[in-house]
């Protein structure tokens, strides 16, 4: 794994060997020598490791993952709701109260 963190590129040097990245309001310089010249532009999200930009983060894939997680949460939420209703229907205590309500 090795400690690498997502950062946003905010500045690129003229000779394209260095850039400045921002991680949650903290800025630092990073080396671009592992990337090809046209690879990185300002606004890109990149992975930083020991002062170097390692790779560009694929925004579409990141958003796709986030969508997947949202869907999973929605499905589970639905399942939970269905289960809660089922438990409620089968609840014996509620049955008694229901019967009393009808009487009154």
């Amino acid at each position, binding site marked *: *794994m*090795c*400690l690498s*963190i997502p950062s946003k590129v905010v500045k690129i040097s003229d000779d394209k060997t260095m850039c*400045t990245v921002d*991680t*949650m*309001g*903290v*800025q*630092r*310089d990073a080396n671009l020598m592992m990337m090809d010249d046209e690879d990185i532009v300002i606004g890109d999200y990149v992975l*930083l*490791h*020991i002062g170097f930009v390692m790779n560009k983060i694929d925004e579409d894939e990141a958003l796709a993952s986030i969508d997947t997680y949202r869907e999973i949460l929605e499905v589970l939420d639905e399942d939970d709701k269905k289960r809660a209703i089922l438990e409620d229907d089968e609840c014996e205590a509620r049955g008694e109260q229901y019967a009393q309500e009808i009487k009154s």
Partner: protein
Amino acid sequence: MTKTVTIAHGNGGEENNELIKKIFYKHFENDILAKSEDAAVIEDGKLAFTTDSFTVSPLFFPGGDIGKLAVCGTCNDLAMMGAKPKYMTCSVIIEEGFSTRELEKIVKSMKTELEINGAIVVSGDTKVVPKGAVDKLFINTTGIGQIEHKGITASGLKEGMSILVSRDVGAHGATIFAAREGIELASSLQTDCASLYPQVKALIDAGIHIVAMRDATRGGVSAVLNEWAKSSDVCVEVTEESIPVQEEVRGICEMLGFEAVDLANEGTFVLCVEKADEAKALDVLQRTHTTSTVIATISEQHKGKVILNSSWGTKRFLDLPTGELLPRIC
């Protein structure tokens, strides 16, 4: 014990404790010392007495300098025992060639902080040593304060009590790392270095019974919670997501592989009160910092340990930090 002293022995964590116990406490043994509180309580509970040395590098950092740090550090140790800082001494060891203009700037900072605490310097010493014998400037201060709230101790924590933190954590440690040579970070982050007596006075005036209180210096909040858990033989259960951390501190921690709870603070303290006093204490603290919050409760689960409870139902131990804090690749 290792044969030679290493940097880790000065880290405020495990190795530091070992050095203190096995050499200093062994020979200086007495009841007052054995209590190991932030300041010694002497003269039958009337006075608090403490000392500290300051070797921080760089000398000037965003939000402060070594002078401000020295006064805050010592006055805070007194305030943490419920004492009003009254008298201080100031000893300096200056490296040959140090700028007199910078020296005066530092002393002026000290004056400003003394005024906030209502304390005065009554004695001092100056030494100048050859180039290389110290790193620019070392300051030692001692302080005496008058105790206004008795009974504050690390061994009084009991099940059900609440632990609060006075503001967001890790700002000082993160600022120092960001300012150090070799790690160039540009951020607007500042140290939290500040005098704590005003907040302590507010708590006392509000009638809050302070069970335990300690500023989270070397070793951070993690060190304080572990010391309390051991001293009182209880379990400190922390709600992980409640620990307040500034975005930028988070950023530096991410970048360098640190945990904010392990980083030093110089103007942040941890407070333990009875559950009944929790709301009132929070109210008082939030008047100074809105980020103050409740972070933990005391239980008997794993005595002597600190547990972090995550928001997704898992737990882990928060241990005393060990070794030197260094950026890691792994």
